[in-house]
């Protein structure tokens, strides 16, 4: 099936999210966490989102499911707009919370410490009235626990009694409780041990296959994203700078930032790791409060020219399904 025929479950157009910060005594400035992002996610795929810390991956994920109030732009779910700043449209999110869920980065902090696991999962069922009678409620909680590899007797325990990996399984069961179609996986494994990471990733893949889920998978570990994703988006300082199939991204990265990012991934072979050509960037990531003009990467880009500091490059399709935002993509 070619990409053009596939159904777009999520579509985001010119989405912005600014956070106000107080600077000095009475001056307000804004952190440009998500800047003019346009993209879409096909039904049933996993879209990976990578970028360094603070580049806005998490904010983008949370804004798409409207856990943050967007600053401007448009969000469509299944071809229905759930947010449109021009039409001042704020859809009531309660019915959409059933369809869009999120798995959080920090499993222990994201579970209410005063509630048992059964209550945490059951609350979601209660809100969306997904059962008839107490027996069905209990059965559903048990089958959810079972589906993430936990025992049914765990439902009476409190979150702190579990290990990090188990807590993340609870978080996943909680997200699955409402039978969502789309799940934002917000760095679901970065707080876990490496040995547990693979378990959770494999479980997420199995669940995706079984329940026909669509994932937005956010991570800073590019190897994990490559493993799980169909397509990968790269973010830098709030902007989406490259988006393509994961295979294509590794084989043929187009944006200079993506090239740098990929050259920093450690290789399993230490000899190769030593001898390969690493691209080292100069300087620090600029402040998102006053982001650089034009292409945000121009301050650190080895290929930057005058145009780069003046005109903002748009995310354009360079080749079939390979989107990139760079003025000089054809020259480098």
């Amino acid at each position, binding site marked *: 099936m070619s990409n053009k025929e596939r159904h777009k479950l999520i579509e985001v157009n010119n989405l912005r999210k600014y956070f106000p910060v107080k600077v000095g005594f009475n001056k307000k400035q804004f952190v440009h966490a998500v800047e003019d992002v346009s993209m879409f996610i096909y039904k049933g795929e996993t879209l990976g989102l990578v970028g360094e810390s603070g580049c806005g991956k998490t904010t983008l994920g*949370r804004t798409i*499911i409207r*856990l943050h109030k967007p600053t401007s732009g448009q969000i469509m779910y299944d071809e229905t707009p759930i947010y449109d700043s021009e039409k001042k449209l704020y859809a009531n*999110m*309660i019915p959409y*919370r*059933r369809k869009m*869920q*999120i798995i*959080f980065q*920090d499993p222990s*902090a*994201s*579970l*209410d*410490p*005063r509630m*048992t696991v059964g209550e945490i999962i059951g*609350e*979601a069922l209660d*809100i*969306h009235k997904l059962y008839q009678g107490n027996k069905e409620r209990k059965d559903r909680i048990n089958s959810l626990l079972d589906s993430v590899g936990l025992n049914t007797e765990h439902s009476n325990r*409190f979150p*702190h009694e579990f290990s990090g990996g188990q807590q993340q399984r609870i*978080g996943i069961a*909680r*997200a699955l409780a*409402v039978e969502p179609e789309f799940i934002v996986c917000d760095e679901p494994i970065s707080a876990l041990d490496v040995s547990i990471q693979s378990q959770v990733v494999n479980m997420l893949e199995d669940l995706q296959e079984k329940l026909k889920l669509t994932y937005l998978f956010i991570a800073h570990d590019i190897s994990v994203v490559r493993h799980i994703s169909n397509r990968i988006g790269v973010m830098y300082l709030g902007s989406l700078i490259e988006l393509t199939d994961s295979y294509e991204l590794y084989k043929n990265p187009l944006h200079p930032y993506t090239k740098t990012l990929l050259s920093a991934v450690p290789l399993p072979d230490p000899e190769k790791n030593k001898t390969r050509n690493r691209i080292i960037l100069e300087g620090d990531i600029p402040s998102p409060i006053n982001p650089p003009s034009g292409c945000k990467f121009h301050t650190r880009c080895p290929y930057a020219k005058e145009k780069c500091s003046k005109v903002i490059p748009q995310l354009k399709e360079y080749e079939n399904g390979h989107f990139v935002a760079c003025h000089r993509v054809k020259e480098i």
Partner: protein
Amino acid sequence: MIWYIIKRIGFAILTVLVVITIVFFLMNAIPGSPFLTEKSTPQQIELANIKYGLDKPLLVQLKNYIVNYLKGDFGTSLKMQEGAPVRDIIFRQGKFALSIKLGLISLALAVIIGIPIGCISAYKRGTWIDGLLRVVSTIGVAVPTFVLASELLITFAVNRTWFPVNSGSLTSFKSYVLPVLSLSFYYLCSIAKRTRTSMLDAINQDYIRTAKAKGVKTRWIIIKHALRNSLVPVVTYLGPVLAGIITGSLVVESTFGIPGLGRYFVQSILNRDYPIIMATTVILAVLVIFTNLLVDIAYKIIDPRINISSSEEI
């Protein structure tokens, strides 16, 4: 849990004994005597001392006190109501009940209004509502009770005769209003401030975001997730507050002419009426210990992670 409570009660009895001993020695360390007046002769004082057993060595006196307390005998008043049993003065004459009633109503008001105000303030953080509530509660914590009580009395009982000047034994609804307001305002404000602080902490936690992602309505997020998690510091504060609100009613009781325990306590110290001082102290100590026990049990209900009997297992 039951074992834990029994153990705590055992410790409570021990604590009361220690309190009796300390108060007894402190009381005797103060110079003067209950029978010392301008007219009394040394012989009269000595006779009175012998009559009430005050001529015996201190340790014997202390032993007598403790033995009598265990029997439930609080002794008789030496001076203020000479010869009357202390138990009757405190309990039968309604002083204790009056103070407890005033204290509990004030505490209830402080909790019922203070906690929601703290929640609203935290939820509307940074808005004018929050600003207003914070200014009012800071003023409330800063203004001494005697100032507030006198102002209320002058404004609403003297200049406008809406409420009685002398509340007496709190027989009508109107007589309650001013004393309860003056007594509870400080606690109300400080409960509101505490709730706001711990609520702000809870609101920024990740599990609040989880609740939002589940689709829980904002109101329920506040009540079910944020409030429950932020109540522990507030409940901790309530234990000492309950004791303080009952003993601290002295100023309010004096201002509004209420014949309660707080006022009587201070008078008994000024008069060196030893049995009354002892009895009042013991009652208050028991009250503090009891409320602390209640607070510890309340912890367990609010935060199921707290295992209050864990000390036995270690």
